[in-house]
């Protein structure tokens, strides 16, 4: 049977993304400062960070970041991982003293009392390789195999969520103001060439750690300000391809959609973005014949993948960062660059805070992505 009884929630938000296109590493201190200046865009009910290049020692392993709320869910997760993966290493994600988690907490209720609701007690990471026979005939790539495992854990293991699963990257998130969470997770101790940060303002829930951004799958991580008004059909489209939208927020849909189009369907990033934020027909009709043909085909095939509604998105993967707005730019997004650094944020102040004199600052046009890639040869 089809389960139609899904609910989803939406939110307003602040975004920051930083990349060094030469692969230079930086600590989490910058992204923390930038996201703190966007304080007003969050309401203390969700914050998170993605960092790339943080696990050089385990660079060939899929790094599973897990949030779990009980010993039972932890043992279920570990049993599942042991069965399907070679688990090289597992450890608790280092954090500061839990009482330091929420210095800026402003929820009105006793923090001690609500802590279990807003943050799971167990934060662990596991570095894994798929355990599969050499000549496996299931037709799956290692990536597909990992995606299946993520879907399985999120759907079937009660109280456990995989919040990231890529190689040499990780996500740190929870309920709270991002600057508090960053402090709690000791982000200043990590070195990454891409950082994204997110301050969340959920509109219709008290906040849930599973609902905080970034959303990830493999090395995709998405942070998002907005609401996907086409959520209903995007979700049903993804379900045809086995994606299970368990986290009940539209950002999850964005993540899976990019995974489907770019990884599974093999579309180049810029082409995939033309599918999810399609140009208007009035513009397509004026394109040269070849370009028009491509855009018509994209729209015909990927009509259900069109992300419609107000949004600004920053998505990252191990080789780059992309910022994008909806087709009529209903949410803010600013981009800037200086030297090998590219910055994106929902507010210019988020950029100026850490890069006071960028060489160029601009407002990307509606539906036109800003794509920053690691330079060729950078490992």
């Amino acid at each position, binding site marked *: 049977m089809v389960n139609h009884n899904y609910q989803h929630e939406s939110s307003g938000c602040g975004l920051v993304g930083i990349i060094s296109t030469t692969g230079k590493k930086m600590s989490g201190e910058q992204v923390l400062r930038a996201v703190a200046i966007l304080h007003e865009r969050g309401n203390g009910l969700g914050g998170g960070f993605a960092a790339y290049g943080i696990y050089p020692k385990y660079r060939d392993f899929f790094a599973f970041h897990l949030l779990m709320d009980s010993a039972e869910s932890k043992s279920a997760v570990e049993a599942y991982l042991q069965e399907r993966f070679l688990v090289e290493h597992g450890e608790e994600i280092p954090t500061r003293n839990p009482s330091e988690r929420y210095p800026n907490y402003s929820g009105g209720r006793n923090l001690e009392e609500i802590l279990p609701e807003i943050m799971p007690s167990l934060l662990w990471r596991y570095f894994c390789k798929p355990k599969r026979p050499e000549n496996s005939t299931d037709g799956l790539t290692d990536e597909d195999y990992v995606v299946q495992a993520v879907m399985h854990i999120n759907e079937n293991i009660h109280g456990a969520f995989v919040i990231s699963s890529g190689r040499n990257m990780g996500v740190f998130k929870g309920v709270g103001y991002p600057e508090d969470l960053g402090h709690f997770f000791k982000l200043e101790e990590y070195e990454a060439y891409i950082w994204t940060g997110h301050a969340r303002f959920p509109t219709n829930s008290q906040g849930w750690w599973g609902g905080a951004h970034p959303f990830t799958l493999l090395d995709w991580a998405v942070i998002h300000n907005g609401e996907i*008004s*086409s959520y209903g*059909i995007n979700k049903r489209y993804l379900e045809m391809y086995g994606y299970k939208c368990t986290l009940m927020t539209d950002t999850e849909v964005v993540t899976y959609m990019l995974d489907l189009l770019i990884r599974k369907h093999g579309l180049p990033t810029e082409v995939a973005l033309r599918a999810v934020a399609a140009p208007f*027909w009035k513009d397509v009709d004026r394109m040269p014949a070849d370009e028009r043909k491509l855009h018509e085909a994209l*729209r015909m*095939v990927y009509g*259900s993948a069109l992300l419609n*509604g107000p949004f600004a998105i920053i998505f990252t993967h191990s080789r780059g960062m992309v910022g994008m707005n909806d087709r009529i730019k209903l949410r803010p997004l600013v981009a800037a660059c200086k030297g090998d650094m590219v910055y994106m944020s929902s507010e210019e102040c988020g950029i100026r805070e850490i890069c006071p004199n960028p060489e160029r600052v601009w407002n990307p046009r509606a539906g036109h992505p800003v794509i920053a890639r690691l330079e060729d040869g950078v490992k």
Partner: protein
Amino acid sequence: MNQNKRGLIPPKFKQVINRELCRRCKRCILSCGFEALKFENGVIGIAGECVACHRCVTMCPEGAITIQKQPLDYRDNEYWTVEIREELYRQSESGGVILASMGNDKPFKSYFDHLVLDACQVTNPSIDPLREPMELRTYLGRKPEKVTVEKDKKGKFQLKGKMPANLLLETPIIFGGMSYGSVSLNTHKALAMAAKNCGILMNTGEGGLHKDLYPYTDNIIVQCASGRFGVNEEYLKRAAMIEIKIGQGAKPGIGGHLPGEKVTAPISETRMIPIGTDALSPAPHHDIYSIEDLRQLIFSLKEATEYKKPVCVKISAVHNVAAIASGVARAGADVICIDGFRGGTGATPKMVRDHVGIPIELAIAAVDDRLREENIRHQVSLIASGGIRTSADMIKAIGLGADAVAICTAALVALGCHLCQQCHTGNCSWGIATQRPEMERRLDPEWGGQQLTRLIQAWSYELKEVLGLLGVNAVESFRGSRERLRGIGLSELELDILGVKHAGR
């Protein structure tokens, strides 16, 4: 015993003529297709003949005529309704099936009337369709599962391979199949003109294509039904899409029937049958007794048209419609039209019209779900038809998963039809469902084309309004987005089949 023409059945309607206003111009008498008025020292109605088509009322320059139900109280009986009693009189006099036309008019639950739409407030802004682009463009036809691109010499990405044939609709509405024969040539012309004006399609129905419609090739769907009337090479060439009609909502499981009286010389030529013969299309296609036979016909038609035209298969909504639609998709259809039990007709046994088939709302939801479960939704476009009355019905059908809707009765109403349900008599006073030359010419195709164009335009505006309030600016962002619909007064099972939550959730 009773010698008058109407037998045991009492008159239904009476014409009330205001003698002070009437100036005896007799226009009413001329306009009545049912000879229900005569002149005897003034205009008088003939008992039992009036069908309440309102042509005389509309044509009377003085506003002197009104039509009333003939009051007649029966002894109350909730079980033996008046309708049932009168049908028994009719059958015992004729000894035959009772013919009827239009669609099922019984008080079954209309699911459209139990669905409401969402709207944006605060968190996601609504979009103003008067200020922002709002896209209704819809493509009918098979789509590949994914797009493949390659880089050209200049490093630009190009589409690799060719897309299957698809038809562009400027708005997700088409005119459904109504045959030339059941309706007049002028009706066909009006539909074709409007289809061209609006960038949409009209379906010829099963009666062939009159030569006067050849200039509208790009806007025509030709039907290949079990009677194969008028099907030849030229016919297939003169169409943008070909539809194999398996079933029709008003008469699932049975073929069409055009009485010999309606088979005039031009009908005879278009249908390729002798003048005055009954045009009976068989219940099944005589070359389709299983799904693999359907596949052969689909591919014969594709071969005949060099794979340049999508092939549609029209089925009526019956109990197992989801599995049938899945089979039809796998048999190679590019488009599936599903016709619900409210769908109309020019003639059908009344018993079949009123008791066979299921509502389009449930059918389209079940089919869309099934095709998604089997991951073949992209292989076909879905057209919902059968009882789409308003833009609201159209919008809800799209929300449930239809790519487009087909309208017939609504289009005829735009041409003047007052739903008197007498199409099968061929006496239509409005010049729509008739082949009587003096009636047919009453319908000016130019005027009719304008009426229909305005109707489609109005519905399209309303669709844009709704997309805007839903906060999306493309119809495909709403198509099948059941999350934007809620049910009111529906059971859990009904909600589950429709795939929508109850209002308040």
